[in-house]
């Protein structure tokens, strides 16, 4: 009997993972403990080690496929051994083009919350072959049954394929990523929406859909902050970033404005006890928000070190599952890109996100008519207006402004 390699559960909330890369190929010898495959879950890439000695007999889940937890990935066994259900698995299709149907006991029909989808056997087969999610295809057959023609029409107008068998795609309907009707033009490349990009897409769309957000922009004179930072760095021989001071200031402001730390849960409001600030880190393939937990209790030094470490590990996919969960507030800093103001999207379940913009030189005229050069930075605070009122938000912004314009107060 060949051993089955299954999708591991890499975190409590993990439901599925994407096969990113097979380290071992079919026919290769495998020892227990060898890394055989890389899996991306949510926002994390993990290496899966073999539990068995033997030969990689058959790779069932192809690179790019989303496989549910405990779903079959591969068989390891003796060379020449036949593997039982391997034949039942559809042949692998080029990764970038289609999502082969996963031989997991979760036909999309069965998990559709709205009940059984009426679809002809032929249409079902065709949809599977072409990787068409037919949950939203309108049927033209008797009693609204989806027939093959409907699938072909859907395929023609929606070459971007959606997964047909991933619980995430089905259980959280996300029209933003469902197959649309996009005409392809010459040279277009079609890739599967998967892994981190898929999660980001889902989260952003969900937040935008659910949250009536308001953004307030506040201009802050950071001339003193910039000087203060320079002096501290010189005096102490450290390298605190502007961001470190901002984090510290925000932490302090939050501690004094706890009503910003709220979460709406149905008909309940959760008042957060902890000041856990998520820090958006841009990656090549998306975005990740590691969390500085209980940041209000951290010194500037601790904040600086933690932020640096988290960002570094985020960029190298080395974050632990729990390190990007549990935020109660988030900060997105686009200052280094020269962004003047923006409109960040609330990172649910938080109710507020602070966009930090570029530091710019501006001329200022004082009461006496003297003109001087000052450094300004804008913050863009986006909040869930269901729970946070405009004035409440403004007070919070003022608190930040107060701190950043009087940097000594940040440390006091």
């Amino acid at each position: 009997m060949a051993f089955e390699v299954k999708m591991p559960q890499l975190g409590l909330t993990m439901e599925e993972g994407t096969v990113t890369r097979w380290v071992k190929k079919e026919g290769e010898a495998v020892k227990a403990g060898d890394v055989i495959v890389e899996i991306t879950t949510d926002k994390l890439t993990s290496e899966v080690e073999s539990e068995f000695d033997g030969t990689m007999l058959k790779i069932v889940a192809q690179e790019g496929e989303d496989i549910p937890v405990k779903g079959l990935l591969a068989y390891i066994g003796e060379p020449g051994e036949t593997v039982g259900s391997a034949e039942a698995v559809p042949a692998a299709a080029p990764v970038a083009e289609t999502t082969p149907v996963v031989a997991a006991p979760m036909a999309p029909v069965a998990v559709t919350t709205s009940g059984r989808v009426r679809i002809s056997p032929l249409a079902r087969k065709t949809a599977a072959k072409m990787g068409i999610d037919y949950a939203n295809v309108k049927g033209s057959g008797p009693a609204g049954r989806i027939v093959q023609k409907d699938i072909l029409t859907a395929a023609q107008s929606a070459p971007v394929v959606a997964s047909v068998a991933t619980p995430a795609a089905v259980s959280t309907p996300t029209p933003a990523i469902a197959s649309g009707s996009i005409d392809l033009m010459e040279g277009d490349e079609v890739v599967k929406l998967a892994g981190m990009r898929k999660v980001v897409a889902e989260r952003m769309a969900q937040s935008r859909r659910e949250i009536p957000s308001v953004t307030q922009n506040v201009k802050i004179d950071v001339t003193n902050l910039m000087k203060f930072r320079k002096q501290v760095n010189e005096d102490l021989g450290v390298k605190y970033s502007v961001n470190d001071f901002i984090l510290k200031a925000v932490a302090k402001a939050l501690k004094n404005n706890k009503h910003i730390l709220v979460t709406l849960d149905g008909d309940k409001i959760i008042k957060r006890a902890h000041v856990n600030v998520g820090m958006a880190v841009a990656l090549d393939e998306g975005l990740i928000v590691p969390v500085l937990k209980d940041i209000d209790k951290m010194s500037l030094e601790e904040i600086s070190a933690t932020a640096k470490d988290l960002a570094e590990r985020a960029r190298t996919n080395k974050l632990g599952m729990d390190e990007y969960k549990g935020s109660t507030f988030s900060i997105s800093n686009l200052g280094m890109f020269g962004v003047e103001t923006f409109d960040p999207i609330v990172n649910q379940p938080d109710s507020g996100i602070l966009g930090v913009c570029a530091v710019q030189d501006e001329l200022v005229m004082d009461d006496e008519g003297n003109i001087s050069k000052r450094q300004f930075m804008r913050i863009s605070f986006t909040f869930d207006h269901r729970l946070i009122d405009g004035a409440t938000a403004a007070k919070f912004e003022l608190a930040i402004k107060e701190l950043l314009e009087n940097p000594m107060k940040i440390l006091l």
Partner: protein
Amino acid sequence: MSKVLSISKAIGEALHEEMARDENVIILGEDMGKMGNVFGITVGFQKEFGEHRVYDTPISESGFCGMAVGAAMRGIRPVVELMYDDFITVAADPIINQAAKMRYMTGGQATVPMVLRLPMGAGRRNAGQHSQCLENIFCHTPGLKVVAPSTAADAKGLLKSAVRDDDPVMFMEHKLLYAKKEELPEGEYTIPLGVADVKKEGTDLTIITWSRQVYFALEAAEELAKEGIHVEVLDLRTLVPLDWDAIVKSVSKTHNVIVLSEEVKRGSYAGEISAQIAEELFDELDAPVERVCGLNIVSPFSPTLEDENFPHPADIVKAVKKVLNK
């Protein structure tokens, strides 16, 4: 080169050619000799081939069908006619328990190369005991081959093959087709048993049918073509052995199927074919297989009643539209 003959004459021609070719071919049945059959199929045969080869039997269907089995086991090739296929009830034992089973029960020793010609079908206002299509009984019985041609050319070629076949062949002839005049090739030819024929090509739906309903299917197809619906008409011609490859080919092309026959719908061979398609071609189907058959009633006498009891082109058109949701 071709000629035009009525289907009954085409059947007669096949019998005549086979009797001339093989002196072991004999004809048994009511009124087959002096009269030359009630449909004139064997007129002149007895005079030409002799009384020892063309028999006017008494009205003893069980007896002469049983005798045909015995004679066939001896190497004779009897072509027996039951005046109506309805009479199979009185000749059921020799066909179902004897002819069909003899080869198997004797471990392959015996062959029963007989043909039972079975005029069948509704439309002649002959009421309950002279109008049935009973192919399901024969198709159900292992050991019998079953042929049900629609055209003159097919009837001739298939009957000649049936006479030459070493198994008992039930040759079902629709009475309402006898007078139909059609073109058929000159000279000798045979059509192998077990080969279906696409009578009309189409892309949207396959009508699997046989015998007289082939014509109704073609009429319906013509009507539907005007609306842009292209129906394929697959004439099975032989019901056992079934040309499954032809069914697979057609269904794989059109993905929608109607099985059309004049039988009583309940327990029909049409139902059997429908089940096989559902079992084996499930993934090819865009809609459930539809049976279009007669009603589950006794064949009525009065024209208005009888016409209710078998599918007409309009019924077929309606069924096609139902399947395609047009």
